[in-house]
């Protein structure tokens, strides 16, 4: 049985420090197990958010050795335990206590995105007919567990605090799921350009790298949305061709 040191952020909204805790490490443990063990052994007031311990609820997001990760999905045998393991809360959101941050900004952002607006039903019974291949693309986006690790690692939010102007990768994925849905008739490209700041994304792909559900956020959601914005706002020739086609049709 090995013993490892965990350097955990302790403190409230204003001040905090990294406090070292030692605990025994056994085979198969994840970071969240170590945190729970530390709570049981030496820090019963250590605040951390968790729920499923299976990488599906998205509650235990934190920064482990500086990288945004789910504590429940980070096995200790993937970390160098000869050095202190740092565990901090997500930096893109205001800290509340210890490892807990206030992520309520995300809920407010979601409310601002135009809702799903389906076309008229295809059948008299009020149902629609869609092909699987038309929804294949958006099903990837439905895997999102809203852990907000992508929001945390995004430098536009993390380093530049553009929370008022940029909705972040999570909600670009959400917008893509709606925008690319074969039944949806709403147009969100104007909002994406003007209100949601898609132009702030400079394609670092950090969001894709940290996604625990392996959603190809940048290539499959953000860039296709950027291209749709180009269609509507930055492609005069494309616009002319569309106009010509409409007139002809």
């Amino acid at each position: 049985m090995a013993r490892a040191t965990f350097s955990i952020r302790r403190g409230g909204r204003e001040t905090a420090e990294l406090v070292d805790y030692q605990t025994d490490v056994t085979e198969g443990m994840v970071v969240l197990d170590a945190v729970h063990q530390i709570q049981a052994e030496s820090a019963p007031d250590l605040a951390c958010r968790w729920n499923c311990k299976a990488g599906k609820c998205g509650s235990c997001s934190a920064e482990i050795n500086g990288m945004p990760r789910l504590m429940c999905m980070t096995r200790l045998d993937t970390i160098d335990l000869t050095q202190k393991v740092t565990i901090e809360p997500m930096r893109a959101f205001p800290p509340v206590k210890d490892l807990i941050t206030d992520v309520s900004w995300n809920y407010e952002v979601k409310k601002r995105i135009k809702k799903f607006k389906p076309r008229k039903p295809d059948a008299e019974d009020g149902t629609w007919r869609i092909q699987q291949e038309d929804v294949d693309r958006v099903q990837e986006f439905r895997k999102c567990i809203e852990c907000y690790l992508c929001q945390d690692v995004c430098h536009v939010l993390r380093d530049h605090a553009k929370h008022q102007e940029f909705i972040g990768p999570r909600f670009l994925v959400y917008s893509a799921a709606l925008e690319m849905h074969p039944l949806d008739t709403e147009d969100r490209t104007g909002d994406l350009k003007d209100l949601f700041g898609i132009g702030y994304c400079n394609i670092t792909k950090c969001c894709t790298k940290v996604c625990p559900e392996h959603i190809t956020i940048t290539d499959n959601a953000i860039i296709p949305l950027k291209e749709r914005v180009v269609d509507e706002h930055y492609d005069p020739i494309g616009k002319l061709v569309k106009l010509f086609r409409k007139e002809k049709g």
Partner: protein
Amino acid sequence: MASNLVSIQRRGFGQTMRRDGWWIAPLLTFLGLGAFIVYSTWAAFQGEHYFVQGTGYLSPMYSPVLFDSWKIAPAVSGHSWFGPWPAWLPQSMILPLTPAFLILWAPGGFRFTCYYYRGAYYKSFWADPPACAVGEPRHDYRGEKKLPLILQNIHRYFLYLALVFICILAYDAWSAMWFTDARSGTRFGIGVGTLVLSMNVVLLGSYTFGCHSLRHLVGGRCDTISTRPVQHKLWKWVSKLNKRHMLFAWLSLFWVGFSDFYVRMVSMGIWADYRFF
């Protein structure tokens, strides 16, 4: 919206709690792109040794040759579309002007505005950010929302030009299969240069046909693609290449540089081109 968001603490340039070698990837990108920029600029300034006499070999950095370089006059390359360097075009604008400068802006613009390269050089050249979860040097950030980087949105126009270039380079690869000598005239053959220039088209094609903009234009923009079988197939095809976009971006970049180097070396007589038949 929560008002206490301003309490987020910024980290200084390079500050991070990461312990891995986060600086390796941006450094390699910096060195790789930097080396290509230095070499291609040098090669573009040369204005000679961009073709090999007696073969159809032509450096991809000079293709298409709109006018033959004034540096080789009165000789001709046999590749020029509009003949020798015209009198109305200056031979230098502070620095010498060569046929490469007349065309390189197009593939250069395609790569500069490419979604993959954007992410790569924003990190390695601008440190914006230097790597994921690593502090940045600047407080101000405009992204691609305002000038000048809003111009990255013209990527699809460079794509259209890049597709034309692929056709031209494919023709060059075909031309590289024909050799001329005084005894037997023009005959079909394969040399190492033929393979080098053919591989160049394959790699550039794999990079260009995996472009994110092309993926959107061929079918990605359609929400209901099942009713458009041709577009659906094209979209799937481009998507497959798109998954390897980074790989082909680097391979094709290296190979363009190597193709120019190969043609230059053979043209200068330093390397002998091996003919298979």
